[in-house]
């Protein structure tokens, strides 16, 4: 059962990811991106991380892709039909990427990059969110603060950048 779901989600993920980089219209790309993110969220649920799945939907689907759409619409890029939308460096790039896939795939399959599923307690799964919250505010409180500061800076930076210069 779980395997079926995994393969459905995986195939959908890959397909929508390919759609992201191959569609000509940025709006369509953004929609594919959204679909891809939703699939990843579903995979997170398979990986017993409902909180992360919700966060993924919340931030990626609910905010990031909307932001992309927003930018596309504000700049009105959707109507531009890109003449040549791929690069002249296409062949060499494809070679490199495929080489990358092979190299890394080889490493994953033949390396020791595998782990058996440890015996986990149901409690850890149910109380997932609570444990994560406690960790965030105890062990990882410093990174947490740093990241929140970063977010604040990004917020201000984005506002400053996007603001029209007043003359």
């Amino acid at each position, binding site marked *: 059962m779980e395997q079926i779901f995994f393969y459905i989600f995986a195939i959908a993920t890959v397909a929508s990811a390919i759609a992201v980089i191959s569609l000509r219209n940025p709006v369509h790309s953004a929609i594919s991106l959204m679909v891809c993110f939703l699939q990843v969220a579903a995979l997170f649920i398979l990986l017993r991380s409902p909180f992360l799945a919700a966060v993924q939907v919340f931030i990626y689907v609910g905010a990031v892709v909307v932001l992309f759409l927003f930018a596309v619409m504000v700049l009105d890029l959707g109507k531009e039909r890109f003449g040549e939308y791929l690069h002249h460096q296409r062949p060499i790039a494809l070679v490199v990427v495929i080489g*990358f896939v092979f190299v*890394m795939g080889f*490493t994953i399959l033949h*390396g020791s990059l595998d782990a058996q599923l440890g015996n986990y307690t149901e409690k850890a799964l149910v109380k997932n969110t609570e444990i994560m919250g406690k960790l965030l505010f105890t062990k990882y409180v410093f990174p947490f603060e740093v990241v929140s500061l970063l977010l604040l800076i990004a917020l201000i930076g984005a506002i400053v950048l996007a603001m029209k210069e007043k003359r």
Partner: protein
Amino acid sequence: MTTWLILFIPLISAVLITLVTRKQKDLSSYISIGAVVFCFILSINPILNLLQHPHMEPIQKSFSWINIPGFHVEMGTLLDQLSILMLFVVTFVGSLIHIYSRGYMHGDPGFSRFFACLSLFIFSMFGIVLSNNFIQIFIFWELVGLSSYLLIGYYFEKPSASDASKKAFLVNRIGDFGFILGIFVIFQATGTFNFIEINHILEKGGIPDSTLYIAALLIFCGAVGKSAQFPLHVWLPDAMEGPTPVSALIHAATMVAAGVYLLARTALLYHLSPDAMEVVAYIGGFTALMAAVIAVAQNDIKRVVAYSTLSSLGYMVMAMGVGGMTAGMFYLTTHAFFKALLFLAAGSVIHAFHTQNIWEMGSAFKKVKTTGTTFILGSLAMAGVFPFSGFWSKDEILTATFTSHHYFLFAIGILVAFISAFFMTRLVFVTFFGNERYHGHPHESPPVMTVPLIILAVFAVFSGLAGLPWFEPNFGTYIAGPSHGGHGEHGFNFFVAGLSTVFVIAGIALGYVIYCRDLDKDPLEENALYKLAHNKFYFDEFYDNFIVSKIYNGIAKICNFVEVNIVIHFFVNGFAYLTRELSKILRLTTTGKLQHYTLIMVAGVVVLFLLFGVL
């Protein structure tokens, strides 16, 4: 804790005024006045404590600031007799001047800025007074210089004011350069910056006399700059471009006294180096005489007072030089009162007449009675007439000079007393009596200005009694030089007192004879000496034409040659050329296109994996 509080309240006030109350002008003055008055109230406790325990141990509170092996600097406060006295002078005179300023600066567009700078100044002055080591005193020394610069250049839209502030700043730098060198010499010799530790080491001895001599002279450089001694005295008269309360606070009562305070603080050093003391004494004496002579020939009321300040500072330095530390500090205290009084009264006079030229005043004593009375009281104190405070303090200096067998300096002292009495008489008569030369309607200043005047006048008259030699304890009980264990040298010499009184009365009489008439201009104007003095002995011109244009420009020309031909043409441009030629080759790799870089990056990862991971 109290000392830290005293130190930082003015800073907080300055910051508050700068950040918050620039628009609410009244509020900013209240904050500033409140801060300094609060400091005064806080400083009452140490004073009472001192009065009860004359031989109190110095209280140090410090924390480590820079701690490198072999180099330890701390931040701290030192509360001993000397600093408590200065604290009292600064807070007391400062409070009165702050209150006075509220009236004097009323309606000025930069009102808040003024009070912010004033608070900053008070903060830095406290820093000097309370610091327990050389580094800290130097920092606050410079901060005082900065705030003095800001306040002299307060009317920065006037070219003369901005020039004066620059001049003050630059001239002070020369002295400060010597000062910091002196600090390093001392550190080299003793390995510490802390005053008390230095004193302990000095008492133990073992430091070569030459080192002490050099250190003492270099530190004296700082005092020369800040206290405007010859040859760096040129900035002080120009500093009168600032608002009058500033002149009173900074350039009469407190900051210029910092040099004297420094000498007192390092008195042991000088005590161990008699040669240096000679230098100090003669420079002080020369300054006193020169400034007194110049003061005779000035027509600007503030400049007259400024030169008299210069002369008084020379007096104090001379006292320090002859070992009369108690006398010097006593004179510093009384001088702070009557000179602040004179400046504030002069400010009040300027407020009334809307001019600074004494030849455009006159005959207005009845219109400005309070100001006039207090001014005359201050002048009497300045002239050293019995029994005003000036008499007692000056007498002590003369006694100290006399008893230490510096008869030449003693003669100079007597002469200066005579000239001081003369020009103060001149100032009073020309300003307030004689025929009417003013325009408009002079009027008395508001109470916010006159009340501080009256308080200061009371102190100018009676503060001399604190040093009355027949009482025990007196001033010297608390402030004692290093040579005299517990007691100051409040000897009283009837010969000295009599001689000085005779000369003072002679000076007043001469002034009365010459100036107590209806005059339109100075009767001595045609005199050659007068002209020389009127032009301040051509010091400014000498500095401009000889030092700056000949020596300084010559060095500059040599430096310019070296820099342009060797540094710029060979090193800088040569390396630039080399770099440019090399970069022409390397530039080919930067296409500026993001995706090229990314491609190479990913390819690099693949290659690395092929090399190390897979194979």
